[in-house]
């Protein structure tokens, strides 16, 4: 009785769970999501190969173990063979086993290596360059800058000139809250990055603060973002794979590591061009607005500030200004926020410890945020901070 139970237990627990789970995987799609890039497919193949080998090896071990557990039992009167290890098998198994394992190892390594060789080093040439190798070139760069806790994307080749300065298109992509994201809770952003299918893109990963990792499973790889360094990878989304791909940050980056989604909208090149044109126009308009010398009213600044605050500052200081002490101070009633305007602007411009410096924002944006902070959540100072004040503080 006891023995039966034991046998049943083993068989059920191990073979059953593992092999049964392969079925479940197929059914629920719990393997990797279908890859949409060549690299992703190669990686998927390597993954399936090793997984199959692993499953077979496990099955072999299981078969032996189950056989042993059934057969060589003392309760069945089996006597131990004290000389088993002295036969030819005992003498030569230390050569035979490693040789066999080595052969399997080389199979795995060989397949992995050929994939690796193909994608590990990113190409160095634009496809439009003269004499570029059509298999090892890229059409455009996308710079991925990780922040605590949002992503910034830059299209270095696209942009506008304003007063002789080149402004590349940037997309700031921040997590949305529970209500707006619905079924895509923690997997939705306000401003997805739009990428063309059928074009080879060189991704340039870097970070503004700590380590992060950019991971969209459908693309097939993840890369770490290292502050101060830039890492290249390259991939082309298949021409027929337009759609929305979701991922998230995969390297522990502090408090809201769990809330750093990535959303890619893969569109046709024509749609992409249209999108980027629109971005260009918007960028130009905002540049012109930021440089105008107009006096802004409290209401104008407050509305502008509110949306900027909610995208840029609320991750740490929370939408209601309550912060997350002790790591992040509340701004509601904060000495700096209700105190000297100059200190407040300086804090936002220059940062301190974990508080990032926001120098890259325009005077107008900072003025708006500061105005908003000084008037929201009961910080009723009534102050209106004009962009000129920010310019003076720089």
């Amino acid at each position, binding site marked *: 009785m006891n023995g039966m139970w034991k046998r049943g*237990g083993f068989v059920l*627990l*191990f073979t059953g769970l593992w092999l049964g*789970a392969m079925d479940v*995987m197929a059914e629920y799609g*719990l*393997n*990797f*999501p279908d890859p949409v890039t060549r690299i992703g497919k190669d*990686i998927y193949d*390597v*993954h399936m190969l090793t997984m199959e080998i*692993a499953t077979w090896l*496990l099955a072999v*071990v299981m078969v*032996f*173990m189950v056989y*042993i*557990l059934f057969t*060589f039992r*003392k*309760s069945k009167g*089996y*006597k*131990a*063979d*004290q000389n*088993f*290890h002295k036969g030819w098998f005992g003498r030569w*198994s*230390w050569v035979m*086993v*490693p040789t066999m394992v*080595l052969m399997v*190892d080389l199979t*795995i*390594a060989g397949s992995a290596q050929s994939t*690796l060789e193909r*994608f590990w080093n990113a190409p160095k040439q634009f496809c439009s360059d003269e004499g570029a190798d059509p298999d090892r070139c890229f059409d455009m760069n996308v710079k991925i800058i990780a922040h605590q806790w949002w992503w910034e994307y830059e299209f270095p080749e696209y942009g506008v000139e304003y007063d002789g300065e080149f402004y590349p298109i940037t997309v700031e992509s921040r997590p949305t809250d529970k209500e707006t994201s619905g079924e895509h809770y*923690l997997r939705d952003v306000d401003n997805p990055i739009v990428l063309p299918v059928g074009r080879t893109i060189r991704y340039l990963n870097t970070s503004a*603060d700590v*380590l992060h990792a950019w*991971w969209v499973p459908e693309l*097939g790889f*993840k890369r*770490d973002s*290292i*502050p*101060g*360094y830039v890492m290249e990878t390259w991939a082309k989304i298949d021409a027929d794979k337009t759609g929305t791909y979701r991922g*998230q*940050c*995969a390297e522990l980056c*502090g*408090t809201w*590591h*769990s809330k750093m989604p990535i959303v890619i909208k893969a569109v046709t090149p024509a749609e992409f061009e249209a999108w980027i044109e629109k971005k260009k126009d918007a960028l130009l308009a905002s540049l012109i607005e930021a440089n105008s010398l107009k006096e802004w009213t409290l209401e104008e600044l407050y509305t502008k500030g509110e949306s900027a605050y909610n995208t840029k500052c609320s991750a740490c200081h929370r939408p209601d200004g309550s912060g997350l002490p*002790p*790591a992040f101070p509340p701004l509601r009633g904060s000495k700096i926020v209700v105190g000297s305007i100059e200190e407040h602007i300086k804090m936002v411009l220059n940062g301190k410890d*974990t508080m990032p410096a926001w120098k890259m924002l325009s005077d107008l944006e900072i003025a708006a945020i500061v105005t908003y902070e000084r008037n929201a959540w009961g910080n009723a100072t009534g102050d209106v901070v004009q962009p000129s004040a920010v310019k003076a503080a720089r």
Partner: protein
Amino acid sequence: MSSTAVETMDSAHDAHDDHGPMKGWKRWVYSTNHKDIGTMYLIFALVMLFLGGLSAMVIRMELMFPGIQLLEPDLYNNIVTNHALIMIFGAVMPAAAGLANWMIPMMIGAPDMALPRMNNLSFWILPAAATMLILSFVVPFFPGGGTQINTGWTLYPPLSIKVGMSMDFLIFAIHLLGISSVLASINIIVTIFNMRAPGMKMSQMPMFVWTWLVTAFLLILVVPVLAGGVTMLLFDRHFGTSFFDAAGGGDPVLFQHLFWFFGHPEVYVLLLPSIGVLSMVIPTFSRKPLFGYMSLVGSMIFLGTLGMVVWAHHQYTIGMSYGAVNYFMIGTILISIPVGLMKFNFIATMWRGSLTFETPMLFAVSIVIMFVFGGLTGVMLAVIPADMQYHDSMFVVAHFHYVLVPGAVLALFAGVFYWLPKWTGKMYNERLGKLFFWTNIIGFNMTFFVQHFLGLAGMPRRIIDYSVQFTEFNVISSIGAFIFGLSHLILLYIVIDTIRSKKLEKATAQVWEGAKDNGLEWDLPSPPPYHSWVEAPKLDANAKYAGS
């Protein structure tokens, strides 16, 4: 340390031929006895296992459903960090060191460890280290205590540079742990080299002794590297250096290299003593000598050496040249050779044996299977293109719990059940032992098996909150974890019962039917005398003491 203490010490000195233990707390605090120190190690490890396990339970409770229920994000990561450090440095390593202390002198026919006073020091540093570790956890709750340690046990900068003062407590705790491990390892190496009973050749040593010899070497070589790495972290935090700061020409990834140069051999430090335990348990309950003694020794040395040079497989997603990743991938995959040989030898030991299934053997059998499974996912991780997907996902969490729990924790349980009758002189309750085994194994597999799929489907690790598509498997995993956690209460009961109960059956010197000639410890009475081999045992020059 008052002057009275000194006086008592002096009078103790005079009573030179007193062979029994000292009375009261001094027996433990002043101890130079390998068994007492071994016992303290084991008790310490058990306490830490429950502490680390409790934090695991909190992790699983938080992860049971999407949304943030119990904890704050930083607190969650703080608990994860502490869970890992407590389990690895507080539970597994001290438990293995406890077994080493108890068993190595008995197995090699020595009266005690070679350096008994230092032995005491190695142990007593641990409570100090644990104090600082726990302080690093609680300091942020005090006003002015700074932010929580939200970095995970890998302590990667720049995040770890931004953490408040609790990180400094952690850094110094790691220094203490390092000192303890290095001293203990020196002691073990010297004991094995210098204290074997006259006539015992290295090739006659029981396998457990061999595994610890290799482990001790690994520790001596890699722990100083961790100490150096966290020292550099400390300098970056407080003295303005820029080792891990690109602005000054450093590189955050340098820390990862240093950490994993320690970290990867460390996983074999956790594994090897358990391999040693299995090499004792399996022959005993197969009633047959260990298959392939020399090949086991060889594969262990091979494993230790290879294990030292493959560290960067934890960092495939950071920048490394094609040559470097290729090298690290192939090196890592080759580790399946020695480990495969070990597992093969265990299976061949059982082959044509005469098996019985007492609790230690039940564990051993299940460990062989589950560890192979964990090891195979390890090989999958080693394959760099695929690791671009697996890395930092729950798949990795599943892998390492499948190797850590069977490969370290459960094997140590097997060792405890195997030697408990020897230590206490009483047989533990076998029925309860079996009950523990089954609840344990079911709970364990339920917890971690499903995490593989979570990882493949794209759930990262170290997140407090996840998107709804991952809910079902997390619920299963959490329920499994609670079963698994509760099962440890049975273990606790069995151990206490065996020590305290007067009703249990007395154990013979040999304890297990198949234990004859499987280690010198079975030649000593159960429980053994206070000093193990005052007279060195007479050895047969051709005999194998637990070998083929």
